[in-house]
């Protein structure tokens, strides 16, 4: 089996077939990275989207662990590219929200649940969080040196070789998606004290793979695909179901769509 065959197998296995249904397009993507002569790809043809299904998420935290391993995110719970929040609503309608260790260790441990034992719970659910890759990103607007920018296919990236660490973008992000790499924790570019955040595993999606959290999710609560491809899973869901985005009133135009709306989640 040649390299192409191997990759084809990997694609089928990882479920990318549902992400990029048209074989020609998928081939274009893979050839661009494997062939000795780079194929020119028009990235403007792609516009990635993400769906989180709050009804499906079981709060196992595998996505958080997968993300930390894939992207070398500091293990401490203060630094996250993605996390999971737990919402508990009691019979009085009062909200209790928490995210012990950012969801990294799941929510099943006893010490995470004793506080809810006496509570008359009406309903509870989990909400996975990650960078919304806003189409109108406030973080890109405020970066004084242009170190954070939007790619042609709509993903917001941070250039670690350029970021000065002023942290204005952290202030500007309404979703708490950004953090600064702590002193001593160097990124792949060999620098610490620069800003990091979820990039939907940009290195993976360009190889036709799914983001690590999507691949790790055992219940398909996280879905990823191309919004321009009418056959992709995210296109189908956003077209057929009622979805909502976080803090829509801020006009950031997020590309993470949530299934299972509950007032008070933001």
């Amino acid at each position, binding site marked *: 089996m040649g390299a192409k065959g191997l990759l084809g197998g990997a694609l089928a296995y990882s479920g990318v077939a549902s992400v990029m249904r048209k074989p020609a397009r998928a081939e274009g993507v893979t050839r661009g990275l494997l062939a000795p002569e780079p194929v020119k790809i028009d990235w403007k043809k792609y516009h990635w989207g993400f769906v989180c299904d709050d009804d499906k998420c079981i709060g196992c935290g595998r996505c958080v662990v997968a993300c930390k391993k894939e992207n070398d995110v500091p293990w401490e719970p*203060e630094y996250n590219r993605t996390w999971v929040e737990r919402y508990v609503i009691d019979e009085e309608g009062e909200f209790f929200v928490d995210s012990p260790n950012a969801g990294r260790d799941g929510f099943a441990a006893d010490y995470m649940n004793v506080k809810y034992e006496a509570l008359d719970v009406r309903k509870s659910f989990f909400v996975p969080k990650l960078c919304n890759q806003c189409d109108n990103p406030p973080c890109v607007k*405020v*970066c004084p040196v*242009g170190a954070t920018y939007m790619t042609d296919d709509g993903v917001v990236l941070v250039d670690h070789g350029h*970021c*000065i660490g002023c942290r204005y973008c*952290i*202030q*500007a992000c309404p979703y708490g998606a950004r953090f600064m790499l702590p002193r001593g924790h160097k990124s792949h570019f060999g*620098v610490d004290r620069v800003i990091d955040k979820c990039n939907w595993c940009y290195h993976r999606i360009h190889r036709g793979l799914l983001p690590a959290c999507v691949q790790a999710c055992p219940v398909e609560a996280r879905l990823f695909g191309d919004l321009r491809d009418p056959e992709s899973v995210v296109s189908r869901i956003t077209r057929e179901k009622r979805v909502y985005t976080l803090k829509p009133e801020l006009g950031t135009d997020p590309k993470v769509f949530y299934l299972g709306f509950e007032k008070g989640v933001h």
Partner: protein
Amino acid sequence: MDGFIYPNEGVVEWDLLIVVYPYITGLVAGAFVVSSLYHVFGIKALKPVARFSLVAALAFLLFAPLPLVIHLGRPERALQMFITPNLASAMSAFGFIWLAYFLLVLTEVWLVFREDIVRYAKTSEGVWKTVYTVLALGVLEISEEARAIDAKLIKILALVGIPSAFLLHGYVGFIFGAVKANPWWSTPLMPIIFITSATVSGIALLLVMYVVSSKIRNVPLDHNCLRALAIWLLGILCVNLVLEGLEIFSMNYEAEESWEIISRLINEKIYFSYFGIQFILGAVVPLIILSYAELTRSGESVKTPARVLAATLVLVGVFAMRWNVVIGGQLMSKSFRGFTDYVPPIFGLEGVLVAAAFMIAPVVFFVVLVRVLPPWQEEPKEPEPRRLSF
């Protein structure tokens, strides 16, 4: 931690250094406005502090960017603000605004002191002669005609300087006011409040520095000047208090979704520094003291300490305001469901000692500056020749 915060919000990213930075630029803007009140608007009573305030503005301006640069994650990349600025970012303007304003103040200081510099250059000896000749930049002409041109240029610079000073500080307010993610910051009133509070703090600083320096130099105070400073302080402090009150009043009245958390912020988390220091000790009490000094017939021996006390309280109050904006806004989670904690460390780059050093350094530099360029203007007299006596 109290309630729920987004996991990444555990670190307060803009710390004490970012409190110090707007405080210092505010003092610069305020001090410059005072000098312009004399140079442009012809408020003669302020003559004794007109040159003095310019030197103070220069001293503080020089140190304004330091806390920012130190605070950067990668300070060695600071100059990228000039090389690859993202013009959509308010912050990218900082370097340019600061540099332009610095050049403006420097030029104005040079023009204002040029006559003195040339005289010193002609009468001093040894090293001092060299220092002043260099400072004169080779322009030794101080005829009536030349001085008239100087005066005209000074007036233009002082005039251009006012909007520049407001830009320097209003822009800092915009940095906060334009963050829609943070309802405690996001208000178009923010730049205006920053400008009025800056002016207030600058006048208060000059009042204190004027009295203290006169005591140290053992020269009589010009009470007219002191009174003018106190009245300007009183007036702008009123405006500032109204604006700050209006800000919180409209948040309360509109009662948007974020009001619940903001109300908890000011009533629980920053209660003391907000109501206690910013409003009562730093604004209401000084207003009462200053009004008392204006309205009663007590002697200058009572009024002067009262005015100095009021000005000192204003300086503390404006610092508290910077704290409440910068730190207060970050204590509140953007999930609107909880608060993080922040206590500045004593040691380390982001600690209290370093922040204090940044506040003291401009004062020290000011003392050095006035040794070289004495700004005192008690009576018109020939500058004393500088002899070699260290």
